[in-house]
């Protein structure tokens, strides 16, 4: 496919790998966090880690909306479906996220709940429009990329007066999560997570632009390079980060110029601003309560806000004690540091959220990297 295949060329990757190896000073270490799950997946799938010199290390970030969704939010959706007979529509990624009482949306469906997997927010609205007797709730998750489509269907529902359609909003914000990581004791105080820069989000940035990251570069002196989700994009971004570190710069650079501008998509931003406002606080799996890190629906659209409509009350639920998703999402631990990894916790039967989505650090390592940890032993003959 055009604009995809060219950015996966193996020969060019070899060239970029050589350039990175040449530019990285052997006497120092480089640690970069790729914020997005999309980058985590690309790095694992295309073996980018193996193409980097040993002193350039990638740390997986919390930019996977499925991974950071806390149990309590999924419990709300399951309650609505099982106890109130509501039809829950959601993106496929959410269905297997572990919730309370060993449930997930998929297991709730097996118990008779009406749970529908949809491709687009518009599908949920179309269902509500076609079947007015059915109460339809769209369980909306995602970062800034996925928020504008949700805003659009809420506005549309209001305009058309579709009274049986509402949204259970779990939309979260990228800059708030980056701030939280930079302010975490592991980064600021103990230095247990060395962090020399960020590979910035691809598609989130098409919406919000590159401008919101300038604060991190200036205030925290951390370089940010926005990169596309193809392997060559990631490698070029790593090279640009190595250069910034070598030259003592901390700037926002944009590798993904073919889709990202400094301002972003102003039309989408305006729409999101019209429909949503900042939530005072939101719980993230791994990061805990993060102030002003998520969106809720404005009062004008309360008729389409499932939390208001069904008087839902959020209850925080602790994760499985042995699960290390929290530490993995903060970059403090690696998937293979978790006792559950690849033993009881697998993509078929995930215990923690990082094993659910293919973008989760655990699922990516399980699928593409888990045999790299096992040393090769020559067979005796």
């Amino acid at each position, binding site marked *: *496919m*055009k*604009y*995809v295949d*060219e*950015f996966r*060329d193996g*020969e*060019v990757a*070899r*060239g*970029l790998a*050589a*350039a990175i190896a040449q530019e990285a000073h052997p006497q120092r270490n480089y640690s970069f966090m790729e914020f*997005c*799950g*999309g980058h985590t997946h690309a790095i694992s799938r295309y073996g980018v880690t193996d193409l980097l010199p040993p002193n350039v290390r990638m740390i997986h970030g919390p*930019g*996977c*909306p*499925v991974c950071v969704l806390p149990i309590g939010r999924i419990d709300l959706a399951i309650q609505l479906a099982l106890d109130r007979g509501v039809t829950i529509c959601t*993106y496929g*990624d959410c269905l297997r996220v572990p919730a309370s009482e060993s449930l997930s949306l998929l297991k709730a469906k097996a118990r008779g709940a009406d749970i529908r997997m949809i*491709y*687009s*927010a*518009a*599908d949920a609205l179309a269902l509500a429009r076609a079947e007015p007797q059915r109460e339809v709730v769209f369980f909306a*998750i*995602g*970062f800034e*990329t*996925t928020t*504008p*489509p949700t805003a*659009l269907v809420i506005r549309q529902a209001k305009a058309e007066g579709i009274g049986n359609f509402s949204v259970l909003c779990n939309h979260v914000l990228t800059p708030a999560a980056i701030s939280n990581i930079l302010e975490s004791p592991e980064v600021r105080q103990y230095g247990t997570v060395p962090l020399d820069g960020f590979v910035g*989000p*691809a*598609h*989130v940035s*098409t*919406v919000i632009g590159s401008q919101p990251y300038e604060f991190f570069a200036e205030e925290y002196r951390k370089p940010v390079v926005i990169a596309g*989700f193809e392997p*060559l*994009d990631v490698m*070029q971004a790593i090279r640009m980060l190595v250069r910034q570190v070598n030259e003592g710069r901390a700037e926002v650079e944009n*590798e993904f*110029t*073919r*889709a*990202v501008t400094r301002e972003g*998509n102003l*039309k*989408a931003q305006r*729409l999101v601003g019209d429909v949503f406002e900042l939530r005072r606080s939101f719980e993230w799996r791994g990061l805990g309560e993060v102030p002003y890190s998520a969106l809720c629906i404005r009062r004008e659209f309360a008729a389409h806000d499932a939390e208001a409509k069904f008087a839902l009350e959020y209850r925080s639920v602790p994760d499985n004690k042995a699960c290390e998703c929290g530490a993995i999402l903060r970059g403090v631990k690696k998937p293979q540091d978790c006792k559950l990894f690849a033993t009881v916790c697998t993509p078929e039967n995930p215990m923690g959220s990082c094993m659910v*989505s293919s*973008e989760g650090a655990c699922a990516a390592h399980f699928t593409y990297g888990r045999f790299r940890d096992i040393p090769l032993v020559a067979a005796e003959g």
Partner: protein
Amino acid sequence: MCLAIPARITQKLDGDMAVVDLGGVRKEVSLALIDGADVGDYVIVHVGYALSKLDPEEAARTLALFAEISEALPPQ
């Protein structure tokens, strides 16, 4: 989750809708979140909505930069 793919607009339909071509697969998507997209343009599609137009000149520039890097590589 934020997965999105570049697709070419092949036909514009009523109500901000359009047909796009994704490597041979045709799909109806919404153009409601962007302005000024036309037939032949590449757009980045996410959950059925075009999020931004792809700038072919910038793409060519990035690819040219990659080509330069691999040409500078000593032959193996």
